[in-house]
């Protein structure tokens, strides 16, 4: 096994890797943000909505969590155009990532909401707050604080999972890497480089989230 690594072609394609990385970050951040917004409403519906709404949200969460992301991506990307919705690859990728990510985020936010004691809602009700006010002013801020760490992990999972959207050739890092390897015939070097970029991103984000957590809830985290 005498293999000589050739990273010169990879270095020559550094702009493509950089653009791919930026798009991966943008796609992940955007889908995380949209997932979180949907999840707040979804979790509210799942914890205190009418029975039929809880069943719908619960069914959605179970359906997404028990089927592969790749199949969800194919269903949306190939299915929606048949219904007359025109999607380019990047829109399809974002839509599938939000559809998938919000199911997991709903569960995270729901766990946060359920971790807030009943005494809190009862006290707020005794003070004369409406149900929506209780949720918005009392429950949600505390719940979101409690779910910062799992949301951080969820973001990293989402970012790593975004490599899958390269199969519909959305222009993120993995798809950019596919282009580079097809042109240079250096698949191993190209995928190794991309893996290193993902690794640096996930380590950097988990480090950053740990710092944010310590700064935001410093004393509590130290006590635990």
């Amino acid at each position: 096994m005498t293999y000589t690594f050739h990273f010169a072609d990879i270095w020559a394609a550094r702009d493509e890797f950089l653009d791919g990385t930026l798009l991966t970050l943008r796609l992940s951040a955007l889908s995380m943000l949209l997932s979180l917004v949907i999840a707040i409403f979804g979790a509210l519906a799942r914890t205190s909505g009418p029975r039929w709404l809880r069943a719908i949200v619960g069914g959605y969460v179970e359906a997404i969590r028990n089927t592969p992301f790749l199949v969800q991506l194919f269903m949306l990307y190939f299915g929606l155009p048949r219904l007359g919705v025109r999607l380019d690859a990047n829109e399809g990728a974002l839509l599938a990532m939000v559809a998938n990510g919000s199911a997991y985020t709903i569960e995270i936010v729901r766990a946060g909401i359920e971790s807030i004691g009943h005494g809190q809602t009862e006290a707020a009700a005794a003070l004369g707050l409406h149900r929506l006010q209780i949720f918005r002013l009392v429950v949600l801020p505390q719940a979101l604080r409690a779910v910062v760490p799992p949301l951080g992990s969820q973001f990293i999972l989402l970012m790593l999972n975004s490599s899958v959207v390269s199969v519909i050739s959305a222009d993120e890092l993995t798809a950019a890497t596919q282009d580079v390897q097809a042109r240079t015939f250096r698949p191993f070097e190209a995928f190794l480089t991309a893996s290193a970029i993902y690794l640096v991103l996930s380590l950097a984000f988990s480090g950053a989230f740990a710092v944010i957590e310590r700064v935001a809830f410093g004393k509590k985290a130290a006590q635990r």
Partner: protein
Amino acid sequence: MRSLNAGDLLFILAAVRWTVLLSVLAFAGGAVVGLTVALMRTSDSRAARWAAIVYIRIFQGTPLLLQLFLVFFGADMVGLSLGPWLSAVLGFSLNAGAFLGEIWRGSIQSIARGQTEAARALGLHYLPLMLRVVLPQALRIAIPPTVGFTVNLIKSTSLASIIGFVELTRAGQMVNNATIRPFIVFGLVAAIYFAICWPLTIAAGRLERRLGLAYKR
């Protein structure tokens, strides 16, 4: 483009066996890697602990799809032609090993230190200590999260389709390419995955609650 017929649906249904077989082999390989990683991670040797940490960080910090590509092209590069089958089994095993290793490390560490110390005081060496004292107790704690991880593993085998392995998702893709009936085809594919994964998800939840009750006194 042709119309969808019963043969297509049977073709998809029959492809389930490759998804199941790949999942079983990947779990077996992952269990071997995972047990090694968990034991290294909890060992007294600093070097072994660090090697395990680096392994876990790398495999949990990079996309599974790229790990599959690297195994596929990397084997080719050193002159081994593994083909999609072996590459997929090897790639999934290496990846599952990192996750199972981390799950099992937690289970091993949750066994009270007094147990190990008592066993040591009775003169047990590492192997009997692990086999007869720690692992049997850790197993009980490890089962619910392991079942939960299996759901992830089964879903992730769909990525094998990208390196050319014909399993459930690839079969669906092939039928869809010929018939262009994405909702029916991928709906069926999704329903099959759901039928396999949902019972496991429920089982994992039940086992976890039961374990929680057993430990809550």
